[in-house]
């Protein structure tokens, strides 16, 4: 039995501290997913917290035959999709430009210049993702940051593998189109990002 299973068993018996270990282990993947989906640091944090609380109160319905990470991510993405739909219902603008999050950079090994470039990269990625409808966005995020197979994504999103494949390819073409329109180009084989304003 690995550490995670021990924590899960203890948490299921009502041991809060054991679930605290799971929060520590999964905070970055859960928060990253929420941020990619919602494109807003405050909302992402609220959604990530809510996802953990939901997971904790619904631990009895977790099937140990599945990976805990997948279960946790699907609770998070479902909650984010709910928020996006509510937001749309409230007629708020989804594409509102938002300030970058202070905790944007998790890699401290690079110098300040590298960090500035990385911030631009994060902003560019968020700008691109915000152009996608939410089910495309979810597919792209799950594929690129979580290394999930098509089968796992299809199961999480309650659809077929072929639907996920075509969604992902259409999303990539859409992103390429938006990227080109915004001056995202390659130079000298190594990738250089130029955002032409």
């Amino acid at each position, binding site marked *: 039995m690995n550490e995670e299973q021990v924590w899960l068993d203890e*948490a299921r018996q*009502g041991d*809060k*501290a054991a*679930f*605290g270990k799971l*929060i*520590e282990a999964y*905070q*970055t*993947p859960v*928060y*990253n997913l929420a*941020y*990619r989906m919602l494109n807003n640091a405050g909302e*992402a*944090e609220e959604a*990530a*917290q809510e996802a*953990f*609380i939901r997971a*904790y*109160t619904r*631990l009895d319905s977790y099937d140990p035959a599945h990976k805990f990470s997948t279960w946790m991510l699907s609770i998070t993405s479902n909650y984010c999709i709910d928020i996006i739909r509510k937001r749309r219902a409230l007629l708020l603008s989804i594409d509102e430009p938002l300030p970058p*999050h*202070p*905790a*944007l*950079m*998790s*890699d401290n090994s690079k110098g300040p210049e590298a960090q500035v470039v*990385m911030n631009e*990269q*994060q902003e*560019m*990625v968020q700008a*691109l993702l915000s152009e996608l409808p939410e089910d495309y966005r979810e597919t*792209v995020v799950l594929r*690129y*940051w979580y290394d999930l197979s098509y089968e796992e994504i299809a199961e999480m999103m309650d659809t077929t593998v072929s639907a996920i*494949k075509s969604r*992902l*390819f259409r999303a*990539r*073409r859409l*992103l*390429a*189109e938006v*990227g*080109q329109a915004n001056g*995202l*180009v*390659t130079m000298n084989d190594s*990738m250089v*990002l130029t955002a032409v304003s």
Partner: protein
Amino acid sequence: MEHEETYLLMMDALDGELAEDGRIKLEAHLRACPPCLQEWQAIMVVHTLLQTTPALSPAVDFAQRTFARLPNRRVRIWTMAAIYALLLLGGVLPILLGVWLAFVLGPVLSEPTILSSISQSIGHALQVMGTVVAALLAGLGEMIVQQPAIVGWLLVLLGIISIWGGVSRQLIFQPAPQQIS
């Protein structure tokens, strides 16, 4: 080769699942078809961008603050267990009582004279109940018409009870924050 087939090959290439003959086909088409080549380059740029963008981390105290918001599962489990036990008792007890009564009284009650007197008394009881219910309904109707203030107060009382119900539930399910040990 059709553009559509090219798209399928591009998809496989992005997934790292392009076989040698597919690679040759794709390269041949891209050399001959400038629009596809341009799109492929644009897709590759976005693909590389996404692949090299690290995950975003939450604030340093995120885990601690999330932990503080967790409800108390143990209290919740015990409360739910108690409620289920009460519901079960509430459902099972009347049935047991009915079965017991049927066994004890069954033989006595099945005599014909007793049966007819029972049906008579049930009839009387129903009549009396009907009269009482009718009188109550009439009285209630009159009260609503003549004393709306009393009805209003009853509604306010109900509201207070439901609010306190909510507050006590909050107290049970959301105890004071604790620190991670």
